[in-house]
């Protein structure tokens, strides 16, 4: 009977990989199987849940099956309530759901080990052990479908808590196009922690960009070290800019002559991309004294070697436009 429960279907399909309709079908198949094969009232629920989760952990499954059969129907409503809560735990370590009082010490140890991580769900004190064991399970946000099937299985009184979760899940699923986060193994699944995790992922992504950008950041691990490197790099860049600007200030008198050559070439490249120069700020341009510009225009012609007559007129207006920004600001 055990082998029959652990059917090849459960082996071939991992729970996470199945699509929703497939899961439903699979569930229904197993429900039918289990109802037939088991005698007690409670155990169909348990086993449906067990199958439902598509256990991956075979050893635990085997042990818990044996434990369940020993227990029989002794738990009644308590057990079902516990399982009602456990429905969110979509994953296969069914032994975790079965936690409670039946297990042998070694399996309990295993289960507790797996379930160290916290769930943010508040539960009754009686179910503390179940909470702990359930916490270790993988979870998904796509819990709407499972919740529906589970409500068929479990008691309604137990599902008050689950309904809240499922409603949350449903609302989250309805916004499927918004953000789809799969909670990792052993992490909490309530909305806050998921949002927190999304935020942390964004931040770490940005830190990775920065790490690529800043040289020498690859060796350091941890946010603080990377931030240190970034700060040093930014400071060094700023110092470099200051140093260069001081140098430029020193040679500024000679700047004009050299700049013309550069700027002319760049002008030509520039103007191929920008055919239309827009004199869009006439009011500002009034401030600009045109006299020195005329001088510079003549300077352009005299110093540069290339033919500038065609470029000169638009260049002047471009100059006035760009310089108007600085002139209005400087004056």
């Amino acid at each position, binding site marked *: 009977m055990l082998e029959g429960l652990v059917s090849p279907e459960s082996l*071939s399909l*991992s729970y*996470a990989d199945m699509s929703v309709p497939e899961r439903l079908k699979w569930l229904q198949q197993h429900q039918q199987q289990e109802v037939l094969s088991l005698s007690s009232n409670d155990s169909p629920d348990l086993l449906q849940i067990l199958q439902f989760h598509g256990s991956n952990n075979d050893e635990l499954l085997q042990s818990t099956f044996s434990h369940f059969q020993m227990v029989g129907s002794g738990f009644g409503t308590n057990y079902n309530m516990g399982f009602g809560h456990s429905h969110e735990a979509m994953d296969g370590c069914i032994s975790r759901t079965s936690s409670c009082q039946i297990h042998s010490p070694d399996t309990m140890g295993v289960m507790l080990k797996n379930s160290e991580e916290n769930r943010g769900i508040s539960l009754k004190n009686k179910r503390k052990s179940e909470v702990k064991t359930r916490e270790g399970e993988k979870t998904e946000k796509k819990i709407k479908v499972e919740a529906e099937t589970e409500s068929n299985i479990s008691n309604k009184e137990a599902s008050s808590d689950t309904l809240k979760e499922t409603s949350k899940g449903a609302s989250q699923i309805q916004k499927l196009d918004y953000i789809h986060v799969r909670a990792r193994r052993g992490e909490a699944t309530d909305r806050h922690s998921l949002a927190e995790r999304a935020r942390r992922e964004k931040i770490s992504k940005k830190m990775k960009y920065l790490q690529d950008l800043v040289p020498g950041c690859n060796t350091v691990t941890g946010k603080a070290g990377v931030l240190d490197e970034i700060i040093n790099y930014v400071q060094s860049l*700023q110092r470099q800019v200051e140093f260069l*600007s001081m140098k430029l200030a020193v040679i500024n008198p000679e700047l004009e002559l050299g700049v013309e050559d*550069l700027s002319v070439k760049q002008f030509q490249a520039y103007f191929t991309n920008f055919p239309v120069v827009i004199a869009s700020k006439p009011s500002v341009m009034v401030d600009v004294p045109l006299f020195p510009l005329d001088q510079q225009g003549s*300077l352009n012609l005299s110093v540069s070697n290339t033919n500038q007559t065609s470029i000169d007129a638009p260049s002047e207006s471009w100059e006035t436009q760009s310089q108007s920004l600085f002139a209005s600001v400087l004056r």
Partner: protein
Amino acid sequence: MDSISPLSNQTTTTSSSSDLSRRKCKKKSPPSRPPSLEKWRSEKQQQIYSTKLGHALRELRISQPSPNPNGRAVREVADRALAVAARGKTLWSRAILSKAVKLKFRKHKRQSPALTQPVIATGSLRSTVMRIKAKGLPAVQRKVKVLSRLVPGCRKQTLPVVLEETTDYIAAMEMQIRAMTALLSAVSSPAEHEEGQTHVLG
């Protein structure tokens, strides 16, 4: 138990797949840069910046004829040119430009040497940076605050914003340095044979 072995194989595969957290946006397998960084690396952007800088420097030279322009003034001009090149899409560029505009207004109002204000700003920047480093806040937050003070316009911003601005600011500054060194080398190296030619302005 014959069924154990395939099941155990399954466990490994499913656990590895479930450990990945998926997002709505597709995963970028190669670490691609945000497009803003590509912009700062392009040759065209550098040319635009150097022309702007050239004109701004000329303008500066005209406005301050007798003293050679300070290194500080040149730096301000260079930063402003960079902010213009950024087209005001980023926080730091807007902050730089608004700083300059505020300065202009203050100058109009008080007619006092407003140039002292940027002096104070740069002076206090270093001191606040050191002061923040000395505080006993949690280390990462302390450093984030320091970083936010370094990048203009990011003093009261949240961490993701600060990080984004930092990436853009670093890329822009790298381009600025490249352009300025190119300008310097172009000026200094042909300076010898340029002086032999027309010396219009003397």
